[in-house]
């Protein structure tokens, strides 16, 4: 599952993530991270048998965990299916279907925002 983790400044210096990985034997893939003394944000993908338990643990330690279904949202009204975004995606999450419609795979998307910036009609928004 994909989730956004939020750290308060008081726990930034603790080793919660590595402890969690060790205790629950989970796969923990960091897609994006922005951590400073003021706190932090992380976009991660967690999998493994004890994934749910590991999330409970992180929450107990003070990390706010927000599971996300959508990393970005494609605005159907604004999108003209021009495809400018397709070749820019670093993880090939955007594809053109047989009918030339542009489709974003939220499972693959890491929310880097590159397509958001380059979209001529500003039709892709990173979900916060």
């Amino acid at each position, binding site marked *: 599952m994909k989730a956004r983790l939020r750290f308060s400044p008081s726990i930034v210096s603790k080793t919660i993530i590595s402890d969690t990985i060790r205790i629950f034997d989970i796969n923990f893939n960091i897609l994006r991270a922005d951590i400073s003394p003021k706190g932090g944000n992380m976009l991660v993908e967690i999998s493994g048998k004890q994934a749910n338990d590991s999330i409970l643990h992180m929450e107990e330690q003070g990390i706010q965990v927000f599971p996300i279904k959508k990393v970005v949202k494609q605005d159907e009204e604004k999108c003209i299916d021009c495809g400018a975004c397709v*070749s820019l995606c670093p993880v090939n999450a955007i594809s053109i279907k047989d009918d030339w419609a542009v489709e974003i795979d939220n499972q693959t998307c890491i929310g880097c925002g590159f397509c958001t910036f380059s979209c001529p*009609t500003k039709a892709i928004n990173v979900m916060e």
Partner: protein
Amino acid sequence: MKTIDEINDKIKNGDAVVVNAAEMVNIVAENGLKEAAEEVDVVTTGTFGAMCSSGAFLNFGHSDPPIKMNKTFLNNVEVYSGLAAVDAYLGATQPNENPEIGSSYGGAHVIEDLIRGKEVELKVEAYGTDCYPLKKLETNISLEKLNQASMVNPRNCYQNYAVAVNSTDETLYTYMGTLLPNFGNVTYSSAGALSPLINDPYFQTIGLGTRIFLCGAQGYIIGEGTQHATEADRVNGVPVTPSGTLMLKGDMKKMDPEFVRGAAMPKYGPTLYVGAGIPIPILNEDIASRTAISDQEITCRIIDYGVPRRSRPIIRETNYAELKTGKIEIDNMEIPTSPLSSIKKAEEVAELLKKWIQDGEFYLSSPIYKIPSKGCTVKPLEIKKPSLLVKNIESKPAIIVHPSDEVKNVASKLVENNINHLPVVDNKGKLKGIVTSWDVADAVAKGKTLLKDVMTKKVIIARENEPVDVIARRIDKYNISGLPIVDEEDNLKGMITAEDISRLIGENQNKKGGE
């Protein structure tokens, strides 16, 4: 074999056979050219691409007391009102007056908002005359309130276009979209086999007065577009470089927002996505064969946009079938491609135009004169004073330092010469890096003593043969004060600074004033 009048009779009776240009490829392949030419009456085409050379003439009507509009703004986007008193031309690429909004809401967005029926703020300044005394005006307008709103696009529907790639090691933001460094992606902008002017490459049926689909309404071709060209190399009859263009006109009040869209290419500017479709009457076998062209048969050229000059290097030739696979090979690398024009929307345009004709809502027109198919070339703009090259600048011999120098000696050199940066060269005079006063401060803070450990190795440079204007843009872009000049072998030749450039511009202006 057939005439336009005969086809129009069939349309009237509901008997006309209309297909789109993609379908025509298969029909000719299956039934043969002769049969296809007899059976099919009209082939519809379509495109939905960013067409910067677009805009609209608006007439606002007279206020009381009346005003002679001098400086005119719609939603804070300037429109050109140097024509009579209350006429204006709203250009698609005009950016917003507010630099923070800039290209994210420009002329193209105003056009879209008007077509959507939205209210738009009108602000006017004038100098006041005896007959037009009012000097200031602020009100709201909408499409409905305007007397006329004629979209007149000076250059649309380019016949073929360049395919863009970027060989440099930095991301470029261009009218061909975002181009990733080191051949990271390829962008193209043509509907290929559906594209209007590719289906009638010699303008056998297209000319002034041809009725067309324009942004969801019936519009007209009013002549060849600006930069219309006919003399390029051709493959299968189609020019391999951007060639023919059209000037189009349509009534904005009848347009459909589904087929027009204000857009912005990041760090480039606003542009208008225009949906246009041209019906091609199948009058004979030759015309039929032209409309049967497939993506595979349309050749185009991949151009390196990393070179900001009028002639950019050609990387290789390709075709739209290859581009549309989503990947293309350059130097054994597989590179992802992006269409910039919407092929989905282009299909919708061709299909809707087909439906209009089938339903008897759209009749073909005979052009009064055909778009020229030969003898047109595009002249370049020669600048009176040729662009100055870096090597023409008198630069003082650069003060240099070596990687093995001690930081404290570098510091004194900076102070003695009252400068902020020094180029670092090896014993043979090849550029190895640059050191700034900041790097020196950083070295002191971290206790480093050797220059090679603190110098910046990735240097932004100027080549001797580059125009000074290109360097000025580079200084702006990276917010730096100067850069080393190097020759082809990376030997240091001098330094060029922002001051050198502004002095140069100053000299030019002085000369202009003195002439």
